């Protein structure tokens, strides 16, 4: 029971350590200073009194709202201050994650912000409520371009929150000529400097664009083909990442990575060697929209929250914090916002708000959205993905470990046999 002895020594000190750290933090942490912030008079004029004191549960992506860190406005606090409605705000890490939480019927969410294909799925499964747009007058700010989207063609269930596209982020110091194609992600010259999405849908989409396969194909063979491409690409991949991409690209430990345009702008703040390009083969477009699930308990307050998110001033705060493209015309036309973008990156406007027709002339924008896929295809993707992740590459170095292992086993066996033989000899002697 050495474990106990070991832990006994740790216990007291760690206990004291915890107490001291705790008191230090309590002493030092100072109250946040309030940032001056006001919504437009229209939003402020709504009568919120019937809902004051109620609570709504909001379920959003992580780091996907202006939350008061680093001197920004805390949107949820501002909402509570204006309306008296408490916001219980929680995060999910992916659409599937959100779906399984919602499906398990645990907590009842009032506002969720999933992506396009997931909204299609939720609508088809009857899990969303139709919105009452009388409570959402600020919907008028939503750009025509982002109305009547394929997953909600009659604008009944969803209100766009953020939009974006995937592109290639590269380090100009490490990539000699500016890439224009996904093929840079399997360029032997950049071997071991390439990052890749650690998320099956986004990773497969890249392979499918390269191979000119429909990204929403239901043909299992097509997915196999895409996996073959990814298997080959794996030989050059440094690691599969999601949010670690920030650190790896900013520090220059990787040269190229596919990621979302908005996040490129955040990275660029910390490393101005980085550049961004949309590949010629095509790329995924996504729209994250606010919806109300059928399990919502406070629908009217939820609609007021969505309306609040659409308020030009709130949307501006969010757009400046998240750096993703906003579907809100009041934001896009705002001069402060345009100046803000220019300060971020000289080309920020072109990166966030590219013209689809100019980038991909003659293509149908609807082919670039993900669609909901049948369960059989989803299962296929998940199997292929785990096969891909486990498969070893050509330049794998784990064989050293095997050699070490085998040598060690042989040595150990040798020692044991030697000892046994000697023991027996001694007994015989």
């Amino acid at each position, binding site marked *: 029971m050495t*474990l106990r002895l070991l832990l006994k020594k*740790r216990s007291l000190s760690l206990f004291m350590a915890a107490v001291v750290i705790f008191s230090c933090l309590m002493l030092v942490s100072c109250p946040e200073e309030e940032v001056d912030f006001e919504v437009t008079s229209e939003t402020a004029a709504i009568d919120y009194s019937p809902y004051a004191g109620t609570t709504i549960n909001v379920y959003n992506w992580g780091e996907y709202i202006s939350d008061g860190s680093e001197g920004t406005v805390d949107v949820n606090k501002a909402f509570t201050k204006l309306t008296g409605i408490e916001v219980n705000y929680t995060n999910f890490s992916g659409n*599937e994650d959100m779906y399984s939480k919602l499906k398990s019927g645990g907590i009842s969410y009032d506002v969720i912000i999933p992506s396009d294909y997931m909204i299609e799925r939720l609508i088809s499964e009857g899990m969303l409520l139709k919105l009452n747009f009388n409570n959402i007058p600020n919907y008028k700010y939503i750009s025509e371009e982002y109305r009547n989207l394929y997953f909600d063609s009659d604008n009944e269930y969803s209100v766009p929150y953020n939009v974006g596209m995937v592109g290639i982020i590269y380090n100009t110091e490490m990539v000699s000529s500016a890439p224009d194609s996904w093929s840079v992600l399997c360029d032997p010259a950049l071997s071991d400097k390439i990052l890749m999405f650690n998320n099956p849908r986004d990773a497969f989409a890249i392979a499918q664009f390269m191979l000119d396969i429909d990204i929403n194909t239901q043909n299992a063979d097509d997915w196999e083909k895409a996996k073959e491409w990814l298997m080959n690409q794996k030989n050059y991949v440094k*690691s599969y990442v999601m949010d670690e991409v920030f650190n790896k690209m900013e520090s220059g430990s990787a040269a190229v990575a596919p990621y979302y345009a908005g996040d490129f702008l955040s990275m660029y703040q910390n490393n101005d060697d980085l550049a961004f390009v949309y590949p010629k083969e095509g790329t995924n477009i996504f729209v994250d929209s606010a919806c109300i699930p059928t399990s919502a308990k406070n629908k009217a307050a939820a609609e007021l929250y969505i309306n609040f998110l659409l308020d030009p001033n709130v949307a501006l705060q969010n757009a400046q914090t998240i750096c993703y493209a906003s579907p809100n015309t009041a934001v896009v036309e705002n001069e402060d916002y345009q100046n803000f973008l220019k300060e971020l990156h000289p080309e920020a406007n072109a990166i966030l708000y590219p013209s689809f027709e100019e980038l991909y002339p003659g293509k149908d924008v609807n082919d670039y959205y993900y669609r909901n896929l049948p369960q059989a295809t989803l299962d296929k993707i998940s199997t292929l993905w785990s*096969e891909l992740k486990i498969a070893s590459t050509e330049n*794998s170095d784990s064989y050293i470990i095997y050699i070490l*292992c085998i040598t060690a086993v042989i040595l150990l066996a040798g020692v044991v046999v030697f000892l046994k033989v000697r023991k027996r000899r001694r007994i015989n002697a």
Partner: protein
Amino acid sequence: MKTKKSLLQRYAASPYMVWSVLFVIAPLLFVIYYAFTDRNGTFSFNNFSRMFSGETPKVFVISLAFAFVSTLICLIIAYPLAYSMIKTKKKTQNMLIMLFMLPMWMNFVLRTYAISFLLEDRGLINQLFTSIGLGQIKLINTSGAVIFGMIYNFLPYMLLPIYSVMSKMDKSLIEASEDLGCNRLHTLTKVILPLSIPGIVSGITMVFVPSVSTFYISQKLGPSDFTLIGDEIETEIKSAAGSYNYGSAISFVLMILIFICLIVMNKFSDEDAQGGMLV
């Protein structure tokens, strides 16, 4: 009086037993249940046939191999270390043991982060290499980094049991063996080594079990094609594809494997320790 006492005390353990059944036994039954059913809850061996037809056996082998190698290196490092330590003054020993355990008081996520920070391509070591003209060497995202991560994280777990057994060893035994004409090597192999076996065994267990099932070290330090069994369980369970069945099946196999290892381990130690020393 006696009966009254035993009544009270017999029931003292019942809340614990209820707790154990609810939160130790029942969860394990759930693992088994999920392992042997499919998404719809019907009984099937599909998870296992998928596991053994796919790449998972390879992942098991890799995990075991890595855990084995890192345990072995830990032992090779820790044993002479403990031996050198007991040779020093008592006061120095206390200071040393404190300093060796200090990194252990920090969370293992923090420790792994510290290593990755150092090994990064643009990290300090590579800066150093570049400045003396060696050029950049690939340190992070290699198998070596994973092994180093495991050793760094788990070395104190090996050192402490060995040290505590050695420091409690009767010094007169060592002196006696020297008086009887044994040289230093003989004293080590004939006296100190056999007596420290209980420490070695618990050290090996305490390093092997966490290294075989770790999931953070490999993600943070390993190469892109690198998956340990802990990573696979974590992705299967946490990726929320809506089914826990496959992840449960892997956990189940891992659990069985570890129990087998522990039993073998204990058998080994019972034979060699001449009984009684291992608690």
